[in-house]
């Protein structure tokens, strides 16, 4: 399959289609075509490539460079080699603590977020009256800027005057100190973050819309229950989208900043103090840029590792419609 794709690519061209022309012109055209076509894919990805080189690589390398310095931002950097990394890994309890909190958050957030947004997408995928309105409303919280969301949530979570405790009281349940108790704060942040699942939900929805109705019809005819249709048709065919959402949600979980920063400020008692916030504080509160850069790079490596392993195992469960896995082991090198 690898080879055939390669050939496909090679024969794609960006030249106007000429009429059949006599031999000589043809060969010339052919040569031009071949050199063109080997460049062609790069032309398509050029926007990213250029942008990446222009706006990402430089700053990235610079931050790597910074991570080898004691860099107090306000002047006077000093080369310290690997000291920053050593300090992060071996001397900084706060880093590990924040990492633990982040992991806890990710563990709570990623599955619930994915499940909830998939669930909503499934509901929205039904033809029904006012579906556009439903879509819009479910997406609403995602449209609010972080600041607005946070003030809303502090109102909802307020121990004394909060809506949530009001509701609990109506149900005869005791009030919960959502943001004031280290036991609840994490759940509070997770729940609040969940409210903005609109984006993920829409991605799922668009994915669902791409699954041919006929497959469900066929399954329906075979008497396959809705649940089995979901597990055996929807999930596999949605798997590329699930993978996308999984990876991006994972990344988002690790980079989570706004909600916790604004809602709890990392507290109470650091129960929601996550890695991204620690890096943020180190950079913009303590002005310790070198150290922040080192932590950033470690976090980057960590996320990369996680995502890479997710991607790696994805071949076991992700089904790509257009990529048939060939039995030949020799061909397995290509995706």
């Amino acid at each position, binding site marked *: 399959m690898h080879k055939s794709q390669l050939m496909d690519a090679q024969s794609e061209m960006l030249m106007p289609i000429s009429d059949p022309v006599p031999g000589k012109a043809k060969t010339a055209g052919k040569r031009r075509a071949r050199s063109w076509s080997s460049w062609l894919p790069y032309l398509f990805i050029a926007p990213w490539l250029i942008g990446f080189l222009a706006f990402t690589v430089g700053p990235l390398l610079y931050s790597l460079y910074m991570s080898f310095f004691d860099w107090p931002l306000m002047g006077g950097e000093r080369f310290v080699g690997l000291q920053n990394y050593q300090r992060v890994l071996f001397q900084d309890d706060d880093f590990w603590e924040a990492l633990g909190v982040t992991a806890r958050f990710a563990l709570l957030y990623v599955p619930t977020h994915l499940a909830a947004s998939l669930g909503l997408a499934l509901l929205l995928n039904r033809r029904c009256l006012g579906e556009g309105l439903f879509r819009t409303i479910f997406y609403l919280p995602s449209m609010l800027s972080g*600041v607005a969301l946070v003030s809303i949530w502090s109102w909802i979570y307020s121990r004394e005057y909060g809506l949530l405790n009001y509701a609990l009281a109506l149900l005869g349940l005791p009030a919960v100190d959502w943001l004031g108790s280290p036991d609840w704060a994490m759940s509070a942040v997770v729940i609040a973050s969940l409210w903005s699942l609109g984006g993920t939900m829409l991605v799922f929805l668009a994915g669902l819309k791409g699954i041919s109705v006929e497959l469900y019809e066929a399954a329906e005819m075979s008497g396959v229950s809705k649940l089995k249709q979901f597990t055996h048709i929807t999930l596999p065919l949605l798997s590329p989208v699930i993978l996308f959402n999984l990876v991006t949600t994972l990344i988002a979980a690790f980079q989570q900043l706004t909600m916790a920063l604004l809602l709890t400020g990392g507290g109470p008692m650091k129960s929601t103090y996550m890695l991204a916030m620690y890096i943020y504080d180190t950079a913009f509160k303590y002005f310790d840029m070198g150290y922040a850069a080192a932590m950033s790079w470690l976090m980057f490596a960590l996320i990369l590792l996680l995502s890479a392993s997710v991607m790696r195992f994805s071949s076991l469960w992700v089904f790509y419609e257009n990529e048939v896995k060939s039995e030949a082991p020799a061909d397995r090198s290509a995706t």
Partner: protein
Amino acid sequence: MISLAARSRRLAFYSLMLLLVLAFAAPLYWTLLTALKAKSELYAWPPIWWPAEPRWGNFVEAWTAQPFAVFLSNSLWVALLSTIGQIFSSSLVAYGFARFDFKGRNALFMIVLGSMMIPWDVSMIPLYMEFNALGWINTLKPLIVPSFFAAPFFIFLLRQFISSIPRELDEAARMDGANAWQIYWRIHLPLMAPALVLVGTFQFLGSWNDYLGPLIFLNDQSLYTLALGLAQFKGLHSNNVTAIAAMTVLLCLPPLLLFFLAQRHIMDGATSAAVKG
């Protein structure tokens, strides 16, 4: 006509939807409520669901407190241009990654994914320096131009979507004499419509609500975007809740409207009936 079971199923479905609507609309409703309240009503207990006398004037007051009209036009420029840029550049790149096999493709794609994970904090200052060197600081360029160079998130998203467009369509177009560009432009772009609506929505909202970018790259107030204007309006010391709520409501109206108009393009079966089998 409709059986009892079907009817009760439908009833259950709509009740569930209604419940969810309540849950999801609550935030904005509360914001609206806050915007209409008098300050003394903010902490009324038990909660009130509609202010005794709604103060629509709060909106006018909030709007005129700052040159929000200027901010609005800046925001629109930034959001619209970057949305256009993002839609085209990302789909182009995604198409490149999805439909070609070329040397280093997998490695490059891993880099695309990887660059999604770069923590923003530390590359911000070097980026600032770079834009400064380009003379872009205190212009809208840093907020617009990078979107013309495809964001990893969207590349990844679109690539996943392209992977479900039947290759037979590419082949048919090739037979019809379309070159790679035309296949992208005439076949893939329209077929990606649902996903492009997402890209557009996300990018528009991202630009619209972006606070950090404008904060860092803009100095002059006449260039501020709404989100920055709002944050700055909030200030460090004052906490004018009603005005902020009013501005928040105003701020999310344009994206709301746009989204409502765009979402109908997230329709089903974009590629069904394309091929048999």
